[in-house]
Every structure is written in C-alpha cells, then in structure tokens.
C-alpha cells in the first residue's frame, strides 16, 4: 500500500512554475530521497506534502486519505528542518511536548512519548536544557525527536544535515538510517548531497527545474542515468563526458572523438545505434582500469597524465581522451606521476551514451 501519493501536483508563484505536474508514489516504510541542485523545487515539494504550501493543482494523499486541503497538523506527518527550528525559549522537553500539548493529549501520555523519543535519540540528559546550550548535533537530534513524539507514519526531512560539519553529518546520517530501520516508517528526505542520497535511499528522485528527471533505486540511477544531467549529478568525482560521433555500421558501432575511436559494440542501446548522429560518451572515473587490468578491457587506450589529485584513499589522475579532459580514479599506491604514459581501459557496458541534442540516454 502506498503511504504518500503525489498526483499531478503543480505549484506556481505568480508566473513562475516551481513544480510541474509531479507524480510520486511512496510505499509504506520506504525511504525516498528528493535530490537536486538548489532551486530545483525539492524543498518546495516537501513543503507541499507537509501542507505548509498550498498546491496550485493536483492532489496529495497520505495513508490513503486525501489531505490536499488539510492543515499540516492533521496530515499525520512529522518534519525536521535544516536550521533545526527549535523554540529558543523552551527547554528540550518543552520543545518535544509542544505539539502534544497543542493536541491536548493527557499528561502521562505526553510524558511517555517524550521519554521514549529521548531514549531512542539518547537525549535524556539534555531534557532540561535550552536549545542555546546544545551543540549542532544535539539540536538536530532534538528536532528529530520533535517529529518522533508525534507518533506519525510519515517523516519529512528538509536538508536536516546541511548545517552540520562533515564529521557530524556522517554520524547523524548513520543514525537516521538506524532510526529508519528501527521505526520502519515512511521517510521523505530532501538533500542536495548525493552521498546522503545514495547511502540512505531506497529510491531517489532526481529533480531539476520542478520536474523529476529519474525516480529509481540508487544503483540504477548510478549505473543507468536517464540523461546527462542525472549522470553528472550522481557520482563523485563526476562522470567523464566526451563529445563525439556514433559511426560505423553493420552492427559494429564506433564512437569517434578526435583521434580516439571506441568500439561500443557491447553497449546496450535503448533503441539500436543511431549511426551518424552526435553523441556524448560518459564513463565514470572509477570504472576506468589502468595498467595490467586495462589490457584485458574491451576498450583500451594510451594516455598521458597531466594532473594528479591525491584524495587519500584514491588519486584522481587527469588525462585527455579524444582531446577532451578525462579523469581516472586510481588506488593511491599505484598513482602515476605527471607526464607518465599509461594504458587505460574500460568496458562500454558500464558506460553511458547520451544524445548530444536532447541529453537523453541512447
């Protein structure tokens, strides 16, 4: 059964179309991540689901009930904000119980829920403190707790980790995942951080310009991005793109860019090879093999190393393929030096080809 259904939702601010007829179905217990660059409408969509913004058109269902015209408090949602949004004049306990008091729950029920939430999030020693006296990580825990005490089916996260430093972000990311496994409720999570998206999500919706570009499992989005935007947005370091031409014939397609010719006979075309048309060939830096391993790959080339970027566990080496920049991810022990000529190879099966005009996968 679907937990949250967004049907044909559009939102306009004046003449600006922020969301364009979006459709999403989120299953019960699913972790859905809305991913995209800033201004793509992902937070706006979350606010629409929460009821903080009225939609211009379309419907929203939560647990099978049409909540399009309902107030946020009646939608059965809990929400966590980027800036924590804790009430500064209330203690942690006051923050957690504010919503329950508004709902006029009996005192012992409020106490029971606050106790349970603070146990789960390990914030019991902080209950009497004011938000000012908490660290960023603790504040975000309290903010999650405020959603937790509401005992709701659906959790909405609006970039909850973006205000934290890198180390804390990783810790809380794991904790959110643990929380999801323990509570097994539906979570919709907005982020612009693709690592968060990949690690947390059951499914990712990649958005741009108010439109969902691709809605799929993280691995599917990583391996088979539907267009050049998704391919470039997912993965770090970013995918290599080489602009060129598909030519050849008789079932033997080749991709030609400058002096390089790549045999793409093994590539899985969606609708057959479009001979003679311009295309973009994309291959991830981590899918490129070097040295011995490269020779056994279906495609291999000679490359001169121009720039080396050590990143700790790996090193990113930059070269040129067909006259265009091309990066390779190499284990740091095997890192080449600038000026080295090495053998690189990859398998077109793991690459992506996009139409040069529409940027769609071919």
């Amino acid at each position, binding site marked *: 059964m679907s937990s949250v259904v967004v049907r044909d939702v559009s939102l306009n601010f004046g003449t600006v179309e922020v969301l364009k007829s979006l459709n999403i179905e989120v299953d019960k217990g699913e972790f859905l991540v809305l991913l995209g660059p800033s201004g793509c409408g992902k937070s706006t969509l979350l606010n629409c689901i929460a009821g903080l913004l009225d939609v211009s058109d379309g419907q929203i269902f939560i647990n099978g009930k049409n909540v399009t015209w309902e107030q946020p408090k009646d939608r059965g949602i809990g929400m966590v904000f980027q*800036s924590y*949004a804790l*009430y500064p004049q209330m203690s942690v306990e006051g923050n957690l119980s504010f919503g329950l008091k508004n709902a006029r729950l009996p005192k012992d029920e409020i106490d029971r829920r606050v106790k349970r939430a603070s146990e789960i999030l390990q914030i019991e020693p902080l209950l009497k403190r004011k938000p000012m006296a908490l660290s960023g990580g603790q504040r975000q825990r309290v903010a999650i707790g405020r959603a937790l005490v509401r005992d709701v089916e659906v959790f909405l996260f609006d970039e909850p980790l973006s205000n934290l430093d890198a180390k804390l972000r990783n810790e809380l990311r794991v904790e959110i995942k643990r929380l999801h496994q323990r509570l097994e409720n539906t979570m919709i999570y907005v982020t612009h951080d693709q690592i968060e998206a990949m690690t947390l999500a059951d499914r990712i919706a990649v958005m741009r310009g108010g439109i969902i570009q691709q809605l799929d499992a993280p691995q599917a989005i990583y391996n088979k991005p539907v267009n050049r935007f998704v391919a470039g947005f997912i993965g770090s370091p970013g995918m290599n793109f080489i602009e060129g031409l598909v030519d050849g014939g008789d079932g033997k397609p080749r991709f030609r860019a400058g002096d390089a010719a790549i045999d793409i006979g093994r590539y899985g075309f969606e609708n057959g090879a479009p001979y003679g048309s311009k295309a973009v060939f994309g291959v991830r830096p981590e899918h490129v093999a070097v040295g011995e391993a490269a020779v056994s790959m279906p495609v291999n080339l000679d490359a001169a190393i121009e720039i080396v970027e050590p990143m700790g566990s790996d090193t990113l080496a930059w070269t040129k393929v067909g006259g265009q920049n091309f990066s390779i991810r190499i284990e740091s022990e095997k890192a080449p030096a600038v000026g080295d000529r090495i053998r690189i190879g990859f398998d077109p099966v793991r690459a992506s080809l996009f139409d040069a005009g529409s940027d769609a996968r071919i």
Partner: protein
Amino acid sequence: MHDPRSAAAAAAVMLPFEGPRGPRPRKALSTRNIFIYGTLLLFAFYYLLPLYVMIVTSLKGMPEIRMGNIFSPPVEITFEPWVKAWSEVCTGLNCDGLSRGFWNSVRITVPSVILSIAIASVNGYALANWRFKGADAFFTILIFGAFIPYQVMLYPLVIILREMGLYGTLWGLVLVHSIFGMPILTLLFRNYFTSLPEELFKAARVDGAGFWGIYLKIMLPMSLPIFVVAIILQVTGIWNDFLFGVVYTKPDVYPMTVQLNNIVNSVQGVKEYNVNMAATLLTGLVPLFVYFVSGKLFVRGIAAGAVKG
C-alpha cells in the same frame, strides 16, 4: 637536513629577537585623537549649555534672575520655583499647577502605548507570517499613512470624534494616538518578525499551533527587544505630543505639554522665569528618564532586527 621542521627552526634562529613584538603601541595624544575628542567635547558643551542654564535658573529666586547673570550659578539655592510649578501655578481657572497635566498625560500615555503596541504587533505578525490575500496592498496603504501630513487629518478627525461622542475626552485622544502610531509600529514589528527564521513558524504549524498559539507561545517570547523599542518610541512620542493634545482635548484633560505651553506663554503678570524653567524640566523628566533607563536596550532592540542570533 631532510627534516623540514629543524630546517625552519634553524632559519628562525638567524632572525633577531629584539625589535617590535606584540601589539603596536598607540599614542594617547595623537592629532587624530585630539581632533576627535575636541569635536565631541565641543558638541557636548553646545548641547549641554541650555540644560545648564535651565537648571541654574530654576534654582534661583526672581531678584537674582533680574540681575541678568544667566550663566552664573545660584547664590542662594531655592526649590520654591519647582514646588510652585508642580502644585500652585495657574492655567486658566485651575490653580493646581502642572500636577494635573502630569496625571492627564499619564492617563493618556499608558492606554495609548498598550493599545497601539498590542494591535501593531499582531498586525506585524500577521503581515510577516500569514501571507493573506491582499497583504501587500494592505501594508502599502498602511505605510503610506505614515507619510500623510497630520494637518490634513486634523479636522476630519475632529468630526469623527464628535460623531463618536469622544471629542474632548481622554479616550478620544487615546484613540487618535493609537491610530497614528499604527503605520510605523506595524512596520517595525513586521520587519522584526520577518527577520525571525521562517522555519520556526513552519515547525509550530506542524506542531499544531494556530494563529494565536504561535503568536503568544512562539513569537512573543522571542520579541522582547522590539517591544522595548516600540514602548520607548511610543512613550516619548505620546508624552511629547502637543498638537493632538491641544486639538482633541479640553482644558480639564489637557496633557502636560499643553499645560506647560499655557504657563510659559501666559501674557498676564510677571514672567516668572524660574517657574517656567522648572515646569519645562518637570515636563521633560519622563522622556529623559526613559532614555536613561532603556538606552542600552533600545540600541540592542534596533540592532536585533538586523542580526540573527
């Protein structure tokens, strides 16, 4: 020498230890300082001189004043002019001094301040957080009201108050002050509430608080600084008002400023400069007190809108 640290240490040893170290010394009597403090002192003197003359004169007897040395301190200090100004001096038929005007002003200022701030803060909150239809138009009209000269509205308001049966009463003046405080106070509160993080408001809505719940439990406790600013603006503004007081009230309920004018500008009898000075100082005491007590809070409140905590 392949350890970079020892190489750097060796290089540092070669440099001299004497010479400049720590903060750079500053001269107390530089040209710059003399210029700045000189200018400040000059202007402070310029503004304090009239106050000095008033205090000194109010403590002198009339014979001493007639000698004409207005800058010289009193030979014989007397508080009689103060007593006379407060409780004996005559305006019109009443001879109970400024005390009547003082209590009138208190009875005008307190309800006006409470009423105008209560309404304006809710206005500002609604305009900042609940974007109702026509909010922008409403706000524009309200702000426009701040730029309409009072003279234009004087007579129409007289008629409106007369029709309401409030003309010449304290409550009529309270109503006028509340109305005229509305544009600037609403602007003040709206800007302050806009500067509070919007997510706080959203979180409170998810938590099920309504219009008044969010205002009373979330917004009010966070807005002490701006309330202090509004109170100071209104108390001093209404206390110092002369025009509305003289137009909309009758001699029995004249505020202190109007009564002061009637005392100082009376053309009959001897000009009692010492009593006039004392009366003026008495009238100015309330705003002066408010500024001294709340100056720091005032600055903090004004700045609070600009910087997020």
